């Protein structure tokens, strides 16, 4: 990109966001990625497909999700008004279902009968298994062996839903390695199989397509803010691992120059400790899992292991559109430590009667900081991306609650 070029906010036809995105994958996958790009583009313009998805969201997901004003939580956030977009109330308990239903319908549109998925915390795996059951698809979920132990309950849920869960024993045995293994499966079985990637990372068209399926979050929230409260928020906040819930709520606000977009990355024990998952705040440009983006890497270009109390944010890459929004200054990214996230987790539980996912708690911790910066006249919209049932064991251990 020449310096004279005005940065565009629209990806090009090869899925580039400025210098980020694109495709860095084995040649064997190109035809499948082309097929998927085409299927997505045609489905986007097909009213029948769009109606089918909207109807599923209305009658199955439970959309639109509501906005909740968090008045007691706001007392801990400088008195700013705080609105929660309740993606935790969706079927399966998080925003993940938005993308999964969209891609599962695309799978059928392409005439494929098998889906594979990767999962970290298990939320995307559960959502994928759910959609597969609903639409009659075979489902295989790759999950790092370490994560199958951390999230045993979600493994059981996937199995109850009829999915096969394959523990991945390579590398760090976490999400990154589950993605590697899913890609190997895909390279081998690409003719019959769709890889239902769970975040806005990966090769084109995934970052664009997954964003398009999650935009519904921001589209609804923007309209709800205007209709119910007569204004747009000063800032929209969301946690960022791969960044799917964040891009979903950010994207419809990108044109609203006065609305700040703030992504909260997982800081683990703190960036300076080296044990974190803050890819934008603490990483550098590189290539991981098929896309050019910010990556946690060493001087030889090897991916460095990430660390976070939240399995869903424990990823050493990030969606390429976030990398771009960061570089052009349209979105800000900050790092939240495990301790800050767990404090916010506890405060939301006790002030609002909502147990959030630990991932989401990073966004809530960000709101406590930004709210204090803005003061009582401030107005924040937070994507409450998931519920915390899956995290009860982790939280109980953290707060030393005996089970």
């Amino acid at each position: 990109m020449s310096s004279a070029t005005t940065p565009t906010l629209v990806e090009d036809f090869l899925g580039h966001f400025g210098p980020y995105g694109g495709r860095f994958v084995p040649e064997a996958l190109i035809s499948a990625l082309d097929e998927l790009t085409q299927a997505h583009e045609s489905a986007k313009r097909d009213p029948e497909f769009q109606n089918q998805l909207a109807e599923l969201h209305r009658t199955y997901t439970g959309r639109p999700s509501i906005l909740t004003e968090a008045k007691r939580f706001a007392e801990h956030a400088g008195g700013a008004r705080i609105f929660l977009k309740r993606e935790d109330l969706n079927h399966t308990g998080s925003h993940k279902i938005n993308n999964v239903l969209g891609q599962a319908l695309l799978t059928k549109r392409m005439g494929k009968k098998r889906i594979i998925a990767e999962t970290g915390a298990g939320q995307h795996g559960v959502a994928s298994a759910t959609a597969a059951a609903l639409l009659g698809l075979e489902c295989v979920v790759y999950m790092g062996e370490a994560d199958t132990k951390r999230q045993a309950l979600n493994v059981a849920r996937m199995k109850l839903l009829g999915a096969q869960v394959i523990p991945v024993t390579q590398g760090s045995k976490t999400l990154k390695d589950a993605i590697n293994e899913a890609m190997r499966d895909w390279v081998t079985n690409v003719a019959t199989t769709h890889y239902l990637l769970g975040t806005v990372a990966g090769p084109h068209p995934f970052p664009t397509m997954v964003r398009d399926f999650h935009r519904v979050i921001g589209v609804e929230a923007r309209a709800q803010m205007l209709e119910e409260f007569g204004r747009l928020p000063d800032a929209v906040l969301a946690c960022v691992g791969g960044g799917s819930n964040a891009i979903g709520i950010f994207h419809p606000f990108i044109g609203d120059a006065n609305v700040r977009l703030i992504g909260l990355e997982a800081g683990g024990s703190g960036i300076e400790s080296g044990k974190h998952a803050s890819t934008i705040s603490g990483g550098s440009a590189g290539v991981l899992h098929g896309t050019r983006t910010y990556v946690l890497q060493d001087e030889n270009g090897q991916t460095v292991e990430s660390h976070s109390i939240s399995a869903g944010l424990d990823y050493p890459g990030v969606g390429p559109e976030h990398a771009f929004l960061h570089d052009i200054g349209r979105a800000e990214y900050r790092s939240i430590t495990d301790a800050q996230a767990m404090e916010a987790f506890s405060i939301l539980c006790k002030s609002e009667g909502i147990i959030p996912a630990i991932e989401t708690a990073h966004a809530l911790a960000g709101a406590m900081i930004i709210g204090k910066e803005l003061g009582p006249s401030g107005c924040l919209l937070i994507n409450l991306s998931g519920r915390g049932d899956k995290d009860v064991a982790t939280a109980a251990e953290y707060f030393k609650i005996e089970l």
Partner: protein
Amino acid sequence: MTALSNLLVKTQAENRAALIGYLPAGFPTKEKCILAIKAMVTGGVDAIEIGYPYSDPVMDGPVIQAAAEQSLANGTSASDVFDILAATVALGVPAVIMTYWNPIERFGIEKFAAELAKRGGSGVITPDLTIEESATWRSACAKSDINSIYVVAPSTSDARLPKVVEACSGFVYAASLMGVTGTRGSVSGNASELVARIKSHTSTPVAVGLGVSNGAQAKEVAQYADGVIVGSAFIRKLQENDNFDRALEAITALAKELAIGVRR
């Protein structure tokens, strides 16, 4: 002309395929890796493909994954990879590096090509660099006068295939099957068809990889390809033999068997 291109001219003149052996740099250790390469060359391997071990090798099966993991645990760095390359060139055979893209970008695109040329390497195979993303790399390779080698897959469309082939110099890497690296009971029937499709677009030599592990398979592939690439089968000799000297003997024996195979 790179040493690799010269080799392929020579083997074509001898009416045979070139035997190309693969080993991840730094596996099992830096010193033993060089000895294993020497054992391959002693047995008749014509050219060496040195793998740059990478943390996220999505194109590789369990054998190469395990070897790369061991190499990384040994702390193999870019300078080790180039040292092994230089040691291979010193044995008198052409050497290329096979690497996923990120290590090149991290090292510096032009710098990587220049360093490879300086150490006597012939080229680089980049299995996850799509031709759409390859412009900067290709000009860096041209500037340093080294080969840039890309993979063509059975699923590569007729419309796309000529573009990938055109981007290749040295040879075109034909992936014989849809899948990751590793030994297979038989070489896929797709391979000869794919090589024929490639050859209808170019006079650049074509080498076949993925799944070749014995003399009979090498002979079969040599009927239609200019090069036969063998990786996992060599690595397995090192993984199976606790005694390193015995592993070296097994590598040389396998290389001899394959070298007879490629002579059709």
